[in-house]
């Protein structure tokens, strides 16, 4: 063999070796072993206390919301989860052996929830918020496991996910996790109260508040360094929970507790869009844990402000101002005033006034537009207000005129620019 040929061979061999090593590392990152099936554990193998604790923790995690389709059996999955990358369908987490998690050991369950790996070793999409669940104690996960394993098994196979081309390859999720899945549960902050620490543990972990209230990057992961900076969920703005919340001055622990458990705060506004099911869940949570969550949120919302700001009076009504357009005032009287006119029956029942509504005061009209178009569904079993959808009653220009009127009449803020165009865009978005 001449020296040139030898060099060529050596080069080719080196490239192959590097390639093989790369593939080996990739395979090592991607590969997760299957965890063997177990016979379905009998519900009686768990203590009543553990099941009850698991029920409360599953309520914090709101498992039921994503893992139940509309009118479907609880926890049987198949709910369509629209993401920027396509539509995912949630899995069946009832203890059915064929289609659910009946054959999963507690170890397989913990690995799935914390690391996003199915029992068979396949990678799960981060729609399962394992970015947060990785912070949950094993003991708590075992309690949730006990709770789920003692539910009624339901046979239900989720439809195939419909993702954008190329994103259906689950192996690529291993790379995503390498980039974005970090950190186990955080150390207790001894300078803070036990309640604050409990709140932080729940908020950062099971409650996964940041999944909606933290902005996401292009790869769909929560942005570091902007925790609780506000995000978007199912077409609604999830407001910031940190000091950048524009209504921070109007929240305190009591208002947050009231809001989280009833879906409404008389001095504030009503849980709408995807927040509705959250408050519906927290209604069933023990009051100590809700108060802990409120305590922690209150603290991060007023970070750097040791003096709690005075709750502001927000009773604004500019109805006497002469520049109010009478045609829109008529529209408001016919469509909105029955509930939203000051001194209407709803206002007299202690419902939030429009002037108190943070969405009407916000810079972005998105949530106000959504509330008018989609309405607000009151959580089942709560006393929270209901608002009918107006998408089919009112045209884009009417919705825009009404919101412009309400903003002018009930706030001191400048008019929203290009409102009708935004209404048109959001209506189109909702129809997709």
């Amino acid at each position, binding site marked *: 063999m001449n020296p040139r040929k030898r060099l060529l061979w050596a080069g080719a061999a080196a490239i192959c070796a590097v390639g093989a090593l790369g593939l080996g590392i990739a395979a090592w990152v991607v590969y997760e072993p299957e965890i063997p099936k177990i016979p379905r554990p009998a519900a009686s193998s768990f203590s009543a206390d553990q099941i009850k604790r698991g029920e409360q923790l599953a309520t914090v995690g709101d498992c039921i919301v994503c893992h139940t389709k509309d009118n479907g059996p609880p926890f049987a999955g198949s709910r369509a989860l629209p993401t920027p990358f396509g539509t995912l369908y949630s899995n069946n987490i009832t203890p059915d052996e064929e289609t659910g998690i009946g054959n999963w050991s507690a170890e397989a369950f913990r690995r799935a929830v914390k690391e996003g790996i199915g029992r068979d070793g396949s990678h799960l999409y981060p729609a399962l918020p394992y970015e947060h669940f990785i912070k949950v104690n094993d003991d708590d996960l075992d309690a949730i496991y006990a709770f789920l394993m003692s539910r009624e098994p339901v046979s239900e196979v989720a439809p195939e996910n419909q993702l954008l081309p190329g994103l259906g390859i689950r192996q690529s999720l291993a790379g995503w996790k390498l980039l974005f899945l970090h950190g186990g549960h955080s150390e207790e902050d001894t300078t803070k109260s036990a309640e604050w620490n409990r709140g932080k543990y729940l908020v950062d972990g099971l409650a996964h508040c940041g999944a909606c209230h933290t902005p996401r990057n292009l790869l769909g992961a929560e942005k570091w360094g902007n925790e609780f900076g506000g995000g978007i969920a199912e077409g609604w703005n999830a407001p910031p929970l940190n000091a950048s919340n524009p209504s921070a001055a109007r929240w305190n622990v009591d208002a947050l507790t009231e809001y989280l458990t009833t879906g409404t705060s008389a001095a504030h506004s009503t849980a709408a869009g995807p927040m509705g099911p959250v408050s519906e869940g927290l209604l069933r949570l023990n009051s100590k844990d809700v108060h802990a969550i409120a305590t922690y949120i209150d603290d991060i919302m007023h970070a750097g402000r040791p003096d709690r700001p005075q709750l502001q009076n927000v009773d604004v009504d500019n109805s006497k101002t002469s520049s109010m357009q009478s*045609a829109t005032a*008529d*529209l408001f009287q*016919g*469509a909105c005033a029955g509930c939203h006119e000051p001194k209407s029956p709803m206002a007299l029942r202690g419902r939030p006034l429009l002037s108190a509504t943070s969405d009407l005061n916000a810079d972005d009209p998105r949530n106000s537009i959504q509330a008018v178009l989609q309405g607000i569904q009151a959580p089942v079993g709560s006393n929270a207000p*209901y608002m*009918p959808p107006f998408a089919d009653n*009112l*045209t884009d220009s*009417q919705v825009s005129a009404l919101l412009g009127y309400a903003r002018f009449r009930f706030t001191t803020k400048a008019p929203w620019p290009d409102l009708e165009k935004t209404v048109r865009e959001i209506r189109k978005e909702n129809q997709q």
Partner: protein
Amino acid sequence: MTVSIVVNGKQHDIESSPDTPLLYVLRGELELNGAKYGCGLGQCGACTVHINGTAVFSCLTPVGAVGDRPVRTLEGLGTVDAPGVVQKAFQDEQAAQCGYCIAGMIMRAQSLLDKNPKPTDEEIRTHMQPNLCRCGTHVRILRAVRRASDELVKQG
């Protein structure tokens, strides 16, 4: 002031304040009494009519907001002697108990079947959700919608 609306294919010029609910105009001015006043807050569905072919609560729709969008009421579906397919199905299933919700139920069902004559049971349930019945004849109402769907499919 004069407000013009098109109801069941006929134009009406009404002397009315534009903030008057469409429901009041239908019942009080045009004597179309199919739509009922239930809660007046868009919570029960007894007042359901169609605007532009879509079911809406007429109690929450100011007449001034209707504009040139066509309104359809129960009276637009058929008559006592010649009931529409959905009306006939509700009769055949004896879906009414007190009957107060039924006009709204029929209009809600009609708006579904106009767009999708062959809905699944789940689609029917989801679509009918905004309308309430205090007597509890839901099972008959659902059967009536199914019967109307079968009839429409048969008619092609």
